């Protein structure tokens, strides 16, 4: 493979925002996750839990509720008082309707999906009718005294339960009046000055209302009589979320201590028909508050302030007990947040509201394998660029020569020109960017930094020629056949002739830049693309999918390469296919065309196409063989996949030049150190 000096970068202060709401859609097996900064991410649970779509956040949008309605429509409501519908095709917001009730705390879609119920700050519960293109206000229910913090529909759609502060109301949907008002104790067997906040309610079809509140209680109420049936004290802190399965035989609750409890309906004795709710399993996968839980038919999903999304398949519901039934913890982003300028050794870090430009340090020392070399010049923080406005940055890029920076928010596009004199840097904004460039999903500069490629969320690809201090719009590739399909990933060939773009569903399109037309389309694969790159000289397009398959497609030849066919026939090693995190970046060695460098969050790998492929019996993660081993053994264990797990968790890894690599790591402890305070745990002996 060769010897490399590796720049280990740990100054990327990336802290993801906490998860606030989670909504599971059964028909499409998709999960919508909303974070505290307003970002909404869609995960495709059947495509290896890959994040396929996301909507950028907004400072004023403090989302408090998320729900799916009939026909795959996604709605969210927040403290700014607006109900927002998301367009999943065009990846933008369709409209935001003000509910005129103040901040909205909760939202629930009716069981048949045609009505939407919203609980507001002023105590009113508002009913909206979902029309094919919009939602329409229907009526208000009886107004309550305090804010409505949780809502739940009865499966038949006739009653709803609304949890507020210190009481739960049961409404009749037809008349809109409150039938029962159930008062909740402030503390389990006691009195307390702190008000009891009902964080979640669930209405079962037999008329039982399950409520979880801030005193740590799970209570079962009978909605016909309005009385308490059963009381469980499960935590010393708040129980913040509840989700019931579709069959209503199990539900899951999340507490502020990070524990997730699973309750199941089990029969009292082994052959009796009488059933009762029993707390069966506790799971401790979180350190901070679990603010959102969801129950899919086979798994429990939880997310909270510690920013992890944990999907725990239930063993009794999973049919095939293979690696799919293992716990999945999604911590690191599935997109690239870092871009690199190889010539000037600069790294551009993308945060939610600003960009940071760093120059890598340098060293003059040399050493052997495994040595840590002292830095002669420290890494330099060159630029801290804040974005204007309340919107989050969607994507950003720095040109390979280091003199252009471009980034895009949902409404604007920014292009900056950088000038370097000695050690100083000066920034100049290119004004009057055209309006069609905004809301770009991916930005890429060509290798010679003369052209800018922008993939917008409407499905079109724009090519802009960059001149000194200004720009000229060259061409726009429109999406085919009238469908609006957002292009998520771009790759450009080093010689500047070919541009590859992948959408969310169709195959990868390859465009000829010289002639400005579509060259070919790689056949569609049923798993989304996670990384794209075009090799220099050979112009082979390497595509990585979310099920850990890697394809190599020859662009001039318009067909898959020999190597790709061989490995597809043989199949990848089972350990390779069982990796959790998607491959986010692919790069190449300029002098060695047989090498492909790719990485995911926990490993980086150099694939040597000249070496034989491993079959299932060989050791995949073989360490570097010691030099005193005989040649025979080395030849026996050598295979194409050279994997190293030294640097993890990796956010970015790239080849700067022939002898240098840069690895941007983000240790989990550094993320946890910047999270909000957790609940105190008292342990014996401390």
């Amino acid at each position, binding site marked *: 493979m060769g010897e490399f000096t590796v720049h280990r970068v740990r100054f990327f202060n990336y802290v993801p925002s906490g998860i606030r709401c989670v909504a599971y859609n059964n028909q499409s097996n998709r999960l919508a996750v909303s974070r505290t900064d307003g970002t909404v991410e869609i995960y495709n649970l059947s495509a290896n839990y890959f994040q396929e779509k996301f909507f950028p956040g907004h400072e004023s949008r403090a989302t408090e509720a998320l729900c799916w309605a009939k026909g795959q429509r996604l709605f969210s409501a927040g403290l*700014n008082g607006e109900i927002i519908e998301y367009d999943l095709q065009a990846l933008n917001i369709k409209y935001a309707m003000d509910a005129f009730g103040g901040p909205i705390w909760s939202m629930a879609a009716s069981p048949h999906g045609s009505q939407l119920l919203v609980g507001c*700050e002023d105590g009113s519960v508002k009913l909206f009718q979902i029309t094919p293109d919009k939602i329409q206000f229907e009526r208000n229910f009886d107004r309550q005294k305090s804010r409505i913090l949780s809502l739940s529909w009865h499966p038949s759609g006739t009653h709803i339960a609304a949890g507020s502060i210190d009481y739960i109301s049961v409404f009749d949907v037809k008349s809109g009046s409150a039938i029962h008002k159930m008062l909740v104790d402030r503390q389990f067997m006691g009195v307390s000055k702190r008000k009891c*906040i009902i964080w979640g309610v669930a209405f079962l079809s037999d008329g039982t209302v399950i409520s979880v509140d801030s005193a740590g209680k799970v209570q079962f109420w009978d909605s016909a009589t309005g009385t308490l049936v059963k009381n469980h004290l499960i935590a010393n*802190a708040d129980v913040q979320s509840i989700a019931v399965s579709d069959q209503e035989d199990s539900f899951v609750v999340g507490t502020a201590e990070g524990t997730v409890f699973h309750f199941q309906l089990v029969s009292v004795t082994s052959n009796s028909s009488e059933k009762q709710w029993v707390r069966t399993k506790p799971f401790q996968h979180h350190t901070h508050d679990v603010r959102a839980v969801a129950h899919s038919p086979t798994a429990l999903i939880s997310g909270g302030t510690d920013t992890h999304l944990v999907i725990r398949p239930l063993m009794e519901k999973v049919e095939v007990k293979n690696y799919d039934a293992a716990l999945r913890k999604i911590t690191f982003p599935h997109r690239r947040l870092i871009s690199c300028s190889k010539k000037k050794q600069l790294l551009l870090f993308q945060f939610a509201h600003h960009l940071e430009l760093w120059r890598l340090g340098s060293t003059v020392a040399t050493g052997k394998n495994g040595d840590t070399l002292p830095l002669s010049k420290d890494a330099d923080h060159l630029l801290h660029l804040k974005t204007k*406005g309340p919107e989050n940055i969607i994507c950003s890029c720095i040109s390979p020569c280091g003199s252009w920076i471009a980034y895009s928010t949902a409404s604007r596009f920014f292009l900056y020109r950088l000038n370097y004199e000695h050690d100083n840097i000066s920034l100049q904004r290119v004004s009057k960017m055209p309006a069609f460039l905004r809301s770009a999903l991916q930005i890429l500069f060509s290798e010679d930094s003369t052209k800018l490629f922008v993939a917008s969320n409407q499905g079109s690809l724009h090519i802009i020629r960059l001149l000194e201090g200004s720009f000229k719009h060259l061409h726009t590739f429109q999406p085919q056949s009238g469908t609006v399909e957002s292009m998520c990933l771009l790759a450009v060939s080093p010689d500047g002739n070919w541009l590859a773009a992948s959408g969310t569903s169709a195959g990868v399109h390859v465009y000829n830049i010289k002639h400005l037309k579509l060259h070919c389309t790689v056949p569609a694969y049923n798993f989304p693309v996670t990384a794209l790159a075009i090799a220099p000289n050979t112009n082979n397009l390497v595509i990585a999918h979310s099920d850990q398959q890697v394809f190599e497609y020859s662009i001039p030849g318009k067909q898959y390469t020999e190597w790709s066919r061989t490995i597809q026939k043989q199949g990848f090693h089972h350990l390779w296919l069982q990796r959790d995190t998607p491959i986010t970046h692919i790069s190449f060695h300029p002098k060695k065309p047989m090498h492909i460098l790719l990485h995911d969050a926990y490993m980086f790998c150099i694939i040597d196409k000249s070496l034989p492929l491993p079959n299932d019996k060989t050791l995949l993660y073989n360490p570097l063989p010691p030099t005193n081993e005989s040649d025979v053994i080395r030849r026996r264990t050598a295979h194409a996949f050279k994997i190293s797990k030294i640097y993890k968790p990796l956010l970015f890894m790239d080849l700067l030049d022939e002898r240098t690599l840069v690895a941007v790591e983000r240790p989990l402890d550094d993320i*946890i150190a910047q999270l909000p305070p957790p609940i*105190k745990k008292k342990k014996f002996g*401390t």
Partner: protein
Amino acid sequence: MKPASLALHVTLRLRAASGSEVRRSGVAWVMVQLRQRVSRAPASASAMVDEGQPASEEEAEHGLLLGQPSSGAAAEPLEDDEEGDDEFEDDEAPEELTFASARAEAREEERRVRETVRRDKTLLKEKRKRREELFIEQKKRKLLPDAILDKLTTASQTNIKKSPEKLQEVNLQKKNEECEKGSNSKKTKEKVQKVQSVGQNRSYLAVRLKDQDLRDSRQEAAKAFIQNCLYGPGTNRTTVNKFLSLDNKRLPVKKAAAQFLNNAWGTQRKQNAKRFKRRWMIRKMKTSKK
């Protein structure tokens, strides 16, 4: 109202009988008479409490005679009056009037008074109306022209929100526009063009600041509520450092806390020390050179 009018009525008749000169200064005369009679008027009022018709003059007089003894203050006008009376023969007996005519006269008097009251009311109403219109006119002058108001009402229904700084900018722009439009056409062309270009640029959206403030304050209140519930007093929270160090404390070989060093401690002191060291080094260099 009625007793006073009746008193009026009575005295008028008395004087009318005596001559035409009364008519000329009838009102003044009446006033004087009223003053005189006022001292006794309360008694007459009480006598005529039950809606009485003035009935016959005799009764009225009788009531008057029954009146309260005049106080000293009232005594003087009495004297004046008597002088006045002396001018016109007071010796004559008051003339007799039929009940019907008296009633008619009384009714007429009432009607007259009612009409004056009505007239007064309508006058007042008109005055008020005029004032209202004046205010509306002034308000209209103060408000923005209709075009911008229309834009505002449609803008408030769209979904894009503006950040506060931009809002202030927009308000400033709106004010500029308003005063330019208010001061009308005599402005130079370039200024008008600037206003127009700002309006058609569509890169901003104007929202009423009053609505925005209300919305923001409610949102802030909601956020404060959540913050108080989850992290406020009474919640059992601890720092992340302590949380992560719990495991370290229970290991067989006890380790230090997860974040043992507090790098933010004494930054000012460290800075001062650094500066002092640099200065000391420079001084040392200078002295060693000497």
